[in-house]
């Protein structure tokens, strides 16, 4: 725990350090994305599938997507980026992963609070109808992101091209997970395939919490949690089995 704490502080120093806006970027990025997506919908005349507010629709779509995306992608390089610090014997491979996941989760929660305050101040309604369910949905996204992050961090030290493949997967997820649409609007043949995507379950979960009257036709609450935990355990087991290889490179 002490080691993870030290790594956490060290990650804070460099995670946003190289950009000019520093930590503020974590807050600006979702704001800009919501603005762009809302603007696109507005200009093309598309209506949000739920509620009447574009901002709320993309807050539940995009921001919940970042709860999955950020722990999954930022954590992927945790082991390789901390190679030098791993030469201190008390520092273990997975400590670097836990520290990054912690930083991403805290950053995401802070960014969400900031957006909600800002939108409320601008009199855009962004307060969820069922806060507990909304938070559970975000937790399911976080668990999936963290699980995938652990898995990525371990695999990327062994399979060089993994991160490139993973980049494609994330780009597809951005369009396929339901940031823009809700599963009810999908044609049946697409729904039959996409309903297996756990990220779509997570986003539906968040939206059920946000829009009190909405009940998703696909949501199975434990599915995204189960996928996240299985990936996490898989990553941890592979690290344990192949610790020698993971350590050396």
């Amino acid at each position: 725990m002490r080691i993870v704490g030290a790594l956490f502080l060290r990650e804070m120093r460099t995670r946003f350090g190289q950009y000019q806006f520093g930590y503020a970027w974590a807050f600006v990025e979702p704001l800009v994305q919501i603005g762009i997506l809302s603007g696109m919908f507005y200009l093309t005349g598309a209506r949000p599938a739920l509620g009447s507010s574009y901002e709320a629709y993309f807050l539940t779509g995009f921001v919940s997507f970042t709860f999955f995306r950020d722990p999954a992608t930022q954590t992927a390089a945790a082991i390789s980026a901390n190679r030098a610090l791993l030469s201190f014997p008390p520092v273990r491979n997975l400590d670097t992963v836990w520290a990054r996941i912690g930083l991403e989760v805290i950053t995401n929660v802070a960014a969400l609070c900031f957006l909600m305050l800002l939108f409320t101040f601008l009199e855009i309604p962004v307060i969820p109808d069922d806060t507990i369910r909304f938070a559970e949905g975000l937790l399911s996204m976080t668990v999936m992101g963290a699980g995938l992050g652990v898995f990525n961090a371990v695999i990327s030290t062994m399979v060089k091209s993994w991160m490139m493949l993973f980049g494609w997967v994330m780009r597809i997820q951005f369009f396929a997970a339901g940031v823009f649409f809700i599963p009810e609007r999908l044609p049946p043949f697409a729904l039959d395939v996409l309903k297996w995507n756990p990220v779509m379950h997570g986003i539906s979960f968040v939206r059920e919490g946000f829009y009190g009257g909405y009940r998703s036709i696909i949501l199975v609450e434990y599915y995204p949690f189960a996928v996240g935990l299985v990936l996490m355990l898989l990553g941890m087991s592979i690290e344990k089995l192949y610790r020698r290889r993971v350590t050396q490179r």
Partner: protein
Amino acid sequence: MIRLENVTKRYRLRSGVKSILDNVTCDIPRGRNVGVLGVNGAGKSTFLRLISGNELPDQGRIRRAGVSISWPLGFAESFHGSLSGRDNLKFACRIYSRDVDAVTDYVLAFSELGNQLDEPVKNYSSGMRARLAFGLSMAFNFDVYLVDEITAVGDGRFKAKCAAAFTEKLEKSDIIMVSHSMATLTQYCSVGCVLRDGKLEFYDSISDAIAVYNSLMKDRP
């Protein structure tokens, strides 16, 4: 006491499997300084990394009950390039539960880095890095120091300062040292061991170990 119990460590190379340690059981004595000898590629650095815990044995275990052991000093680069020297010190203090201010003061005085301590380590020259690393390792009081082919850094005056600090350390701490310099080994170590073909042979005097090592070198084509 550091104890190796049935420790096996192998590397898979393109030309086949290389055995560094093959089912080795031994005690590394406390209160003595140990020089480790072996031909190039015998696995001396790996041996130190096993002792420090940087690498895990394939089989067996290494017991280090109650003994604080340094990371291998020398080649290993333990600093994060994007962080300043000061932040790297802070990190090391946190993971070893040491007082940040005391360590920073000591290293600042020892390394003579001055304001450059706040520069990112990636901008340091190799000499500056070595001074920071050496200062840090001297600021922490370890029971056992692992030294991997330590190379003298800086000018003559700084070398003398390092040697003095190190000699002072050795009044309370032990070293396990890998070096190709027989003079350095003789200067610091009293006992020796020779690593060859996965076996570790101990000798009560460093000069005996050096004699065995020299005969090994003669046998090589």
